[in-house]
């Protein structure tokens, strides 16, 4: 006879299998119903909010469920993002009348359930008002990383300049993904964030144990915002002892750099860190100053592949750079010639030279370029 324990095990396995089959089918059916229900509810809310906005009438006796229902919040947030001017202000009034933002804030401050508070915070990003700034700032110390990121997004949308140093401080202690999302939010703040960012970078860069990554990140943010007000700070950072900061500053100056940045970037072309040289060449290409062409051309013989490529690409856009690229074709350095030839081909100089030579108007430089390309093929 078979041991009773075997039979029990078999029965148990069979029961679990049957249970999983039922669970699977139930999930499938429930999922279908929930999706259908969500769709219908969302459509109703979009219609209701649309009606209120078009008539400019706030509800006198709104259903209590509205202020708690995430689908209603989504509909209101969508309208708020779509509309401008008086219509947008009307949506803000609607949010206030129904107490939606306060409800969401209360839910976001609760610890459980996590999904519900995170849902509330996602809506708050678009619906919070300035009176919620303090509460949102307190959420920057939350244990949940998603809560912190969404709090920063909400603060950034409110243009809360006071929170910028706290966010950067926080970025020194959190994971790179979270720091990057917070950085994205700060970029969305735009020019108002430049001053606190700049001050923080200057302070932090002078501290003995400054966070290398976060200062570099902040410098990049200054570049992404693209305000010339950040230029003095970035130029100072370009001469720091920390290579990562110099790289970030050179990259940022590409976006913010005015004529005043040309000379510091020119000096950076001689930096002993190859990444700084490569970035500086790229940054200078955007400024199109013919005085730097010779300095950039010298990088065509740099020991690092990336520096040569960036220098060649930069010379393609600097006035007078193409002539230097053609001259490099006949030079003794094979790497410089390769980089120059590639850039001349992809920038269209090769095509133009072909047309000129075909029309009998070709120069010696054109003929050299054509001969080089033909030779390499």
């Amino acid at each position, binding site marked *: *006879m*078979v041991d009773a324990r*075997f*039979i029990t*095990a*078999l029965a148990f*396995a*069979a029961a*679990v*299998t049957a249970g*999983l*089959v039922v*669970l*699977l*089918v139930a*999930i*499938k*059916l429930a*999922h*279908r119903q929930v999706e259908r229900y969500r769709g219908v509810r969302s459509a109703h809310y979009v219609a209701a909010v649309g009606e209120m906005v078009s008539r400019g009438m706030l509800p006198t006796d709104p259903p209590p469920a509205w202020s708690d229902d995430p689908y209603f919040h989504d509909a209101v947030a969508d309208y708020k993002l779509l509309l401008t001017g008086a219509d947008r202000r009307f949506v803000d009034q609607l949010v206030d009348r129904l107490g939606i933002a306060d409800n969401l804030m209360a839910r976001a401050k609760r610890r459980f359930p*996590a*999904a519900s508070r*995170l*849902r509330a*915070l*996602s809506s708050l990003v678009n619906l919070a008002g300035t009176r919620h700034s303090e509460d949102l700032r307190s959420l920057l110390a939350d244990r949940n*990383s*998603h809560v912190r*990121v*969404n709090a920063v*997004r909400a603060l950034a949308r409110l243009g809360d300049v006071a929170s910028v140093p706290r966010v950067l401080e926080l970025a020194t202690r959190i*994971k*790179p*993904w979270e720091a*990057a*999302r917070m*950085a*994205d939010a700060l*970029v969305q703040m735009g020019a108002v964030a430049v001053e606190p960012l700049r001050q923080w970078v200057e302070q932090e860069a002078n501290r003995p144990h400054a966070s290398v990554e976060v200062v570099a*990140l902040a410098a*990049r943010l200054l570049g*992404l915002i693209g305000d010339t007000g950040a230029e003095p700070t970035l130029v100072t950072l370009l001469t720091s002892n920390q290579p990562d900061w110099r790289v970030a500053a050179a990259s940022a100056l590409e976006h913010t750099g005015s004529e005043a940045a040309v000379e510091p970037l020119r000096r950076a072309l001689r930096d002993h860190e190859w990444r700084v040289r490569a970035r500086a060449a790229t940054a200078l290409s955007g400024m199109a100053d013919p005085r730097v062409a010779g300095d950039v051309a010298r990088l065509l013989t740099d020991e690092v*592949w990336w520096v040569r*490529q960036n220098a060649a690409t930069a010379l393609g856009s600097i006035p007078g750079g193409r002539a230097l690229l053609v001259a490099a074709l006949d030079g003794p350095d094979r*790497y410089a010639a*390769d*980089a120059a*030839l*590639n850039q001349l*081909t*992809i920038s269209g100089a090769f095509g133009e030279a072909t047309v000129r030579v075909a029309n009998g108007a070709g120069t010696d430089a054109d003929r050299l370029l054509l001969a*080089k*390309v033909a030779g*390499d*093929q």
Partner: protein
Amino acid sequence: MSWFLAFFSLVVLGYYVALQVVMLLLAVGSALVLYRERMIERFGRIEDMLNSDLAPPVSVVVPAYNESAGIVEAIRSMTMVSYPRFEIVVTNDGSTDDTLAKLIEAFELIPVPYPLRANLETSPIRQVYKSRRPIALTVVDKENGGRADALNAAINAARFPYVMATDADVLIDGNALVHAMRRVAEDRDRTIAVGGNIRPINGCTVKHGHLVSATVPETVIERYQLLEYLRAFIASRPAWSAINALPLLSGAFGIFRRDALVEVGGFAHGHFGEDLDLTMRLHRHYRNERLPYRIVYSPSAVVWTEVPPTRAVLRRQRIRWHRGLMTAVRDFRSSFFNPRHGPVGMVSWPSMVLFEYLAPLVEFLGYIIIPIAVLTGAVSPMHVAVLFLIALFIGAINSLLALVLDERFGYFNDPRETIKLLAVVFVENLGLRQMTVWWRVRAMLGGKTTQVWGDMERRGISQLGREAS
């Protein structure tokens, strides 16, 4: 003799139960990981990465050999992937058809004297082409050298610090790169590779290079493979990834840090399983050098690929896979129960060897010896039947767990599709499983018919699955 038969029968049944229990543990671990991933996807602002200048740029490298039928559609579909900064590098690996001509015509390619870095050794390069259109496309035309060689040439031409290795006959989900690169952005210092979730496209509807709707394939052989993919990619890899013990990143979707790839010498030439070989080499290198690293998996980074629709093609594929595994078992014997290699050496690689490499042999011997043992009275038929049923039920539980976990992706909207898969859960043990066991045993035995690559006929992306009308 009778003692031996009884003992061996119990060993085989015990082995089978152990195998299923390991899979069950992996499924439970994967469930926890998938729950965490779901929270991140819902609230982690992954979509922010699409507009972020901080997203790390990626080079998508695509080897192409005689892909004339679908190369243009495949590359067009890849250009539509949502990611802030990426380039596509295609290597025409000495195709004998008009693959290159089609690329030149469709993307207005012009030859450029592109100075390639020779970081990885490859067959001679004939020419490099760039597109005149506003898309970042580079085509490297080279002499034939095989898939690994073509990938290495594309890696040499790649400009960005991360390369995504894929195939020319797959359909990359629009958000796959964002999901995979999110894992990189989480920890750029340590992440050297990210694997993606491969799903069979057979039976799905494809329109203009996009998946319109996912349905369960028509034939049992395709459904069986779908179930296998779900067990591997949904109910197993997330758990391995959580303990940094992924033994394999599939060739159809693998993102690697370029410098890490170059450091281990890129893809190995002439290997039947170059993806397995590369993943294990990365583990071994970083473990031996005691460098911090992680190789992770992103279940939401989905790539759709065609699975063999016929028995003959499936047979060739399975033999090739098992031969690749055999070579890897030989090459990485030093990793087997090697504490220096961490969780890979102590858990995932031994599990791969014991439950993947040896499984067909043990199972095949079981099919011969257990009936003999029952017929000679060495073991009680009731005992065998009950143990066999328990093992089957645990196997079914694993498959069902994979199906339940797959629900989070919501691909099969119609409950009837799930019913079709449920049927396969129970019938796969009545012939299909035994068939693949036999092919893998054949691979171990060797012989001329097991030495072929067995490429599938190229149909092109629009013909993968069902083309929408």
